[in-house]
């Protein structure tokens, strides 16, 4: 953990200094006033409400969207990953094709497409489900991430020695049973670092939901800029950069540490 801790300290301190230096370079003598303005807008940017009373917009919305999208993508991605290692070509070929299509599509285009593809509301089981911008954003982000998770799943399963498959087979397990009871429990350690990287990528991708009209941090930032003046735009975007960095950098460090541990154990 020592090397990672050192990197964490260097990265956090360094990035804070660089961003602060940029702020001073752009604003010069005005920096103090700009910082005050930023402090006054912090609750709005973080929680979408001016006094932290509700957590339904701003950075909190990004976190919520990323968690939901990750959960959906984890389920769908595992299913797609199982399809990709299926023995039947009829299942495998479409799964691999779907994974490649999803992985090569730009997130922004998928988000836009979901915006128009998903209906405003659907009626199922006697109740009406309405698709709010947030739900469309979650589905739009979950789709490309599904492909990433399927790839991580396949990679993890393939990292487990084939002898495990054969011995479980000779003990009478069926394919899905082997996967669930023997292979996946061993593969999970290879998958965890990659899953964390995928999550960090997804979180970075939540900055795009601004186009769906969800009340995420970039929409709040745009509103703040519109009300406080374009003069503050640089400072606000610097602040948003800093927030994303503070969230994603620890994940990156933890991922590196886990990878190191998996490598040492082997």
């Amino acid at each position, binding site marked *: 953990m020592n090397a990672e801790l050192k*990197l964490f300290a*260097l*990265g956090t301190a*360094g*990035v804070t200094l*660089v*961003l602060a230096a*940029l702020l001073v370079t*752009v604003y010069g003598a005005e920096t103090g006033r700009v910082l005050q303005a930023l402090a006054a807008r912090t609750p709005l940017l973080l929680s979408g409400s001016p006094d932290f009373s509700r957590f339904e917009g701003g950075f909190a919305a990004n976190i919520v969207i990323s968690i939901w999208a990750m959960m959906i993508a984890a389920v769908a991605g595992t299913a797609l990953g199982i399809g990709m290692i299926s023995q039947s070509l009829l299942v495998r070929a479409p799964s691999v094709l779907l994974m490649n*299509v999803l*992985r*090569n*599509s*730009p*997130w*922004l*285009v*998928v988000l*836009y*497409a979901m*915006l*128009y*593809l998903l209906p405003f509301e659907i009626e199922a089981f006697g109740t009406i489900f309405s698709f709010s911008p947030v739900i469309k954003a979650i589905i739009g982000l979950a789709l490309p991430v599904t492909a990433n998770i399927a790839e991580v799943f396949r990679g993890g399963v393939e990292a487990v020695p084939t002898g495990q498959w054969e011995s479980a087979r000779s003990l009478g397990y069926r394919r899905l049973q082997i996967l669930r009871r023997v292979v996946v429990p061993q593969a999970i350690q290879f998958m965890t670092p990659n899953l964390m990287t995928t999550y*960090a990528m997804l979180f*970075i*991708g*939540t*900055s*795009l939901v*601004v*186009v769906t009209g969800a009340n995420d941090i*970039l929409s709040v930032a745009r509103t703040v800029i519109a009300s406080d003046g*374009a*003069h503050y*735009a*640089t400072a606000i*975007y*610097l602040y*948003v*950069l800093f927030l*994303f*960095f503070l969230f*994603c*950098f620890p994940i*990156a460090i933890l991922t590196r540490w886990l990878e190191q541990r998996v490598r040492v154990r082997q």
Partner: protein
Amino acid sequence: MTLDFSWLFDPLYQTWLLRGVGTTILLSLLGMVLMFVIGIAGAALLHLKVRFLQSPVTIFVELFRNTPPLVQLFFLYFMLSEIGLTLTDPVTGGRIPLFTGFTCVVLSLGLYNGAIAVEIIRSGLLAVPAQTVEGARSLGYSRLQTFRHVELPIGLRMSIPPMTSNIVSLIKTSSQAVLVAVADIMYGATQIMLETFRNLEVMLLIWVIYLVIASLAVLVVRRIAAAFRIPGYGS
């Protein structure tokens, strides 16, 4: 729900789309050049353990890798216009901004994917067999010469598989250009949507176009990788 693609036969829309494809490809190519320059320079500084420069490179990589390229783009766009760097156009004599939206997109693509490229090339360099490096050293190559003639050529070939996905990621990220009003393919699409209201059809077409561009890029990289393969190093 019926899909109506009749708007596709309008020559005006075809021109918009083709021009957009051209801009997207140009953006991606320029971004890739910058990405490779940053990636190779950063990886070289880290690999050669250049004193006083290692920490700045690490901070740069972590800053750009852990923040959204979209926010970087907005930041660059607003900061550069706030500083107000301008050029005098020699033809008209008017002041034009030094950094247009196009330049900002290229810069942000190069910075974000370049920061990732630094890490990719660095692990490629680490994958060069130690014996090869020692062999070069024992033949009298200096540290820099070894790097230039032995480690970098092999390391770059070793980094081709992750670099391919980085290039695809760069092409995908270039779609953000529309958000600072660069006339790329997404921009053409939004214009067509405004006029025809066939939002879903236009987006599906754009989706397919991006898939084709990304797949072509993967094919090209594969051909390059095959042409430059050194038997015995990498797959």
